[in-house]
């Protein structure tokens, strides 16, 4: 057993758990959320949607396959979902100090340390998860022995502004031109679009893209409360008056809702897992999806022109919306997966088909 610093995890309700430090032995504060996925920690840790959050992994054995290398393809890192780690801290039960994988170049411990992100292991993550399930997502902090920090509520700041690109950037040379509003886009969305003959114009979250030449609009995922992105909502509103195809994912679904006049709310403890079942409304088609969101679209506030596209079979929450006539749709789940199941990547095909049809009709 390595002699590691003791770490206190304190929740805002006063509950205290103690574990041992790995990664950076520094204090951190944020919102404590849990994810029930059994693989994919490199993907989760670099997912910008986790900005400001201390992530508890319910799967107890973590670090088994280390962390992959920094190879690039198409101008983006090949094995990660963004250029850096976005979580504020990591909570696990059993950290694996030894790792084994052909694709690994360092341990999770070292990777966290390099990124100055603290981790704690030896926590009863099931007890913690039950606590969060009962009380709702809570603020929390990690304090290695001898250090302290105040609670911090990430939902009160504009997290999107922290994670979104600051400059316009173009990827690919395909025939379908897409404006991608980056609120904290996952790289796998870019990869999925590039695979489908596209040129992507990735723009900052508050960028007024109306002057760009493009055939379709993509609203990315991203962290926090969608209502923080008023600038984006205003821009999207304009697009919804037009006919160019729009596709939104996760935060993009919520922004589409807000832009269309519907409302969003905060879920008690969110959906963060690889096993969320959704049903395409009006059909018997069910899909297993990857999800990571704390806010949701309120189905009953959807406007006359809209209907729910998918719903969650477990709790009937909104999982997507679709315009009754125009080529606009969005999903609360992540068709790009990474991590998680790839069942719904056909939605990218539908988006591209919409674009092709739009171009033909022009």
């Amino acid at each position: 057993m390595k002699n590691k610093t003791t770490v206190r995890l304190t929740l805002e309700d006063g509950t205290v758990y103690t574990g041992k430090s790995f990664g950076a032995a520094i204090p951190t504060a944020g919102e404590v959320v849990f994810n029930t996925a059994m693989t994919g920690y490199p993907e989760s840790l670099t997912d910008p949607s986790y900005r400001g959050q201390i992530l508890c992994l319910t799967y107890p054995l973590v670090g088994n396959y280390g962390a992959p290398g920094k190879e690039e393809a198409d101008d983006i890192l090949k094995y990660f979902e963004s250029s850096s780690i976005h979580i504020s801290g990591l909570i696990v039960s059993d950290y694996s100090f030894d790792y084994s994988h052909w694709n690994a170049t360092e341990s999770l411990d070292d990777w966290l340390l390099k990124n100055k992100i603290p981790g704690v292991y030896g926590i009863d993550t099931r007890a913690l998860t039950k606590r969060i399930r009962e009380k709702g997502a809570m603020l929390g902090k990690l304090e290695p022995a001898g250090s302290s920090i105040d609670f911090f509520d990430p939902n009160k700041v504009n997290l999107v502004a922290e994670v979104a690109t600051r400059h316009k950037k173009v990827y690919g040379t395909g025939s379908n031109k897409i404006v991608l509003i980056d609120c904290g886009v996952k790289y796998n969305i870019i990869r999925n679009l590039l695979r489908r003959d596209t040129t992507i114009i990735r723009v900052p979250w508050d960028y007024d893209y109306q002057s760009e030449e493009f055939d379709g609009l993509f609203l990315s995922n991203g962290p926090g409360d969608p209502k923080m992105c008023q600038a984006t909502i205003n821009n999207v509103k304009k697009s919804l008056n037009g006919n160019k195809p729009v596709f939104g994912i996760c935060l993009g679904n919520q922004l589409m809702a807000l832009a269309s006049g519907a409302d969003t709310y905060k879920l008690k403890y969110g959906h963060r897992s690889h096993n969320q079942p959704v049903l395409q409304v009006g059909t018997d088609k069910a899909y297993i999806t990857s999800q990571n969101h704390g806010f949701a679209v309120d189905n009953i506030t959807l406007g006359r022109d809209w209907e729910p596209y998918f719903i969650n079979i477990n709790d009937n929450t909104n999982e997507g919306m679709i315009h009754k006539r125009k080529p606009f749709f969005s999903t609360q789940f992540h068709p790009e997966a990474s991590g998680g199941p790839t069942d719904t990547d056909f939605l990218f095909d539908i988006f591209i088909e919409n674009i092709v049809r739009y171009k033909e009709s022009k």
Partner: protein
Amino acid sequence: MKDEIRKVLILGSGALKIGEAGEFDYSGSQALKALKEEGIETVLINPNIATVQTTENIADKIYFLPVNPYFVEKVIEKEHPDGVLLSFGGQTALNCGTELFKAGVFEKHNIKVLGTPVKAIMETEDRELFVNKLNEINIQTPRSIAVRGVPESIEAAEKLGFPVIIRAAYTLGGQGSGFAYDSEELRILAAKAFSYTNQILVEESLKGWKEVEYEVVRDRFDNCITVCNMENFDPLGIHTGESIVVAPSQTLTNSEYHKLRELSIRIIRHIGIVGECNVQYALDPTSEDYRVIEVNARLSRSSALASKATGYPLAFVAAKLGLGYGLHELKNSVTRTTTACFEPALDYIVCKIPRWDLNKFEGVSHLIGSSMKSVGEVMAIGRTFEEAIQKGLRMIGQGMHGFTGNRDLKFKDIEKELSEPTDMRIFSIAEALEKNISIDRIYELTKIDKWFLYKLRNIVDIKNKLCEFDSIEKIPHEFLLHAKVNGFSDFQIARHVLRSDASSINREMLRIRAFRKAIGIIPFVKQIDTLAAEYPAVTNYLYLTYSGIEHDIAYQSDNKSVIVLGSGAYRIGSSVEFDWCSVNAINTIRQEGFRAVMINYNPETVSTDYDICDRLYFDELSFERVMDIIDLEQPKGVIVSMGGQIPNNLAMRLHKENVKVLGTSPISIDRAENRHKFSFMLDTMKVDQPLWKELSDIQDIYKFVDRIGFPVLVRPSYVLSGAAMNVVSNKSELSHFLELAAQVSKQYPVVVSEFIENAKEIEIDAVAKNGEMIAYAISEHVEFAGVHSGDATMVFPAQKIYFETSRRIKRISRQIAKELNISGPFNIQFLAKDNDIKVIECNLRASRSMPFVSKVLKSNLIELATKVMLGIPADMPDKSVFELDYVGVKAPQFSFSRLAMADPVLGVDMSSTGEVGCIGEGFYEAILKAMFSVGYRVPKKSILLSTGPARSKVELLNSAKALREKGHKLYATRGTQQFLESAGVEAHVAYWPDENKSPNTLELIKSREVDLVVNIPKDLSATELNNDYTIRRSAVDFNIPLITNARLASAFILAFCRMSIDDLEIKSWDEYR
């Protein structure tokens, strides 16, 4: 569609055999439950009478008949079902269903095959069709060539390059498969494989690749989920049934996990399965390259494991999907609020470990490889890999205490052990780590992913640190907890820290227990809820772990819990029959208003289905863990008499800790278990027993044998190799056995007993209440004593014993029940010669034959026994066995074909892996049904007789005459032929295998000129490889029915000579009144 189906036929899997065991009792029971819930009438065909599925109220009609096309069609003609389920009875049901489909039987009788269409099944079973099918969707399979002959297979291998693996189509658990490194090896393997099948596949070797499996479900709306993935600890090349397996996968990245998942879904869609299938992959350890190895279009051992590993009831859901439901229309039966259309998220790791019983067999190869030899398995649950595997290694039940702390393990050549794995594989890794062989070197030799090896090294590191302390008080509390988190038992800690020896260890582990409890180091109870705590669940499916700070459930301490200790891993000598007993005890406990609490860890059982009981602890049956659970439950009492020997052995230790053991007092159990005490008791009661003595000196053994005379039964307490018991007939055999097989010393004494030849063996299964026997069943063995009772063919009610014998048996049983003040089930075995009765064994617990006699008698002895133990009024059943107008025969199932080189001969140690029980109007009808159920056929051509000693030659004379009268041609080895000729029975000489003359016995077998072989060993201790062995082994290898016991051969032959298959009544269980 759901409404059209009113009556459904389900095919079971028959007797337990290697590759097809208790998991199909579980899947069949689940399917029957699903159908019952829909109000559908069910008809079950399964001759395995010890199963839970063949219990009243589970299926509407039960036929104890062979699962083969002839009998199934007969049942169809009688019952007129509208639907049939083929995927719940293993390969047996699937093969039978495929044949019936091909013969147009389902079409003729207008029966719908529910779930996966037969065409899809056939496409997964025929390698060529399978590969073509996957090629259509660009899914890679190993490069391979299907061939129909030995020369073609060599050509194919040369094309692919050696080494190659060969696989046979339509076989169980890899039967007829293997690796070949050159054309000579291939020639031998291929010839053997062609005896099972007419098509084999020669395939590129992917040795060293990771092996990963997915359990995939699809409904008729094309919705698909993967319920679980599993990673084999051992690389490809070791059959998944022979490998340690973990769930979920541990060394796969998200990309690998979901790539294979996506492929699984593409495959299930393309094949068109409705229900469940299993996809096995080989994954390159250095890239994302993969091959699909196999698809099983049915419920399988892996699906049973996946169900238990995740809490997702695959068989239940598959049955509902077969009726036309969509996944999204079904509920998750653990949470009961969320949908069944989801993929379980685990927050623990499970580790499956196979259990082998190779020591039970003479001559068998201990190497493990591409065909299955294990007879059972355990599943351990933990929150660290170290915890799970150490639990699992203890659960296996072969005297191991975990990964460390095991004695008497010696490996001559450790590197060879690592590169050529045997059943001791995991312990050879422990030894290698102890010897500081590097992880890199172990990886080179084993190709086991280094992640697993690092974890194992971690266990050894902790052990080394523990060894640095010499008192429990000196260990830092944090480190003690760390050891517990990593799966160390109190026993291991006592051994490592206190260096306890055998005499003190039980006392010292109690001291460790008290110490750690005092400082708050205790295990916590966690639920298996399928969603990693995301949603509240009402689940009662539990395990214990030291990685925790709180329990998931609140305890009431209301004195209503009754704990039933289960039977552990299936093994030779203890299998589904004890599961049936446990489940029936649980049912009775619940009916009587108590909280039924089950502890067991065998994923192949019904007793570990969380639906069965009020609380299921899927955990160890060790003293330590049982005490942990008792501390939590504060039960009304514990039942130790249902799960066979494992709980029975705990009785006294629990009693000493003031645990209330329900029923017969542990002190009485000890009096029956302890040879000296029991013998003394019988002497005092003037009940006869064979003479015996415990001796620790070779000279004393010879002296004792001089007094009692040969043959004698020798039972060493320490065995060097081979079987633990043996009958020896002369001095040279005795000295041979004592020198080679056993160690004799003060520490390891040997028990020598008188062996009585030509004696009948009779058993009584009974229930007593406060010392008074209130129900009993007397059965007899067809074979004379000397064949283990588990291998014997049993007849109930006993047909051929004197009234006086039966009276004496009852009287002795009553005396013993009184003397031991029995309250609960018990079983006594007797020898009877003339009217002399001797007691040979007495167990104060449920026996192997309890389900058989209970079902034939239609009086549930276990229910009665449980009521007695609960202290509830239980009256004597009014039925008398003598009123039965029918006969039950229980016959053993052997799995010798799986155990390369094992001598298929019966002896005093048990070697069968399963059994069937069938009912007939008379003995001949019952025995024919039973023998057909375990794979015997009526010979159509000729019979090879080699009838051994004079006594059995005489025994078989009438049978030989009957065969001739029926027009069968007889071949006989020289002595037998001469004997038959002199008695006027025509027989042709067949020369011994080592004679260079024709017709040769071996040729007759290989060419299938004979289709029944009767080979009676010359003496009871045949240990050498000789001509007889070659004949027996070849019969097994070429799949020709073999009988090695004269009494049984005579019974079977006379039965089929007197009755034809058409004479056998097709009657369901309830029609026998």
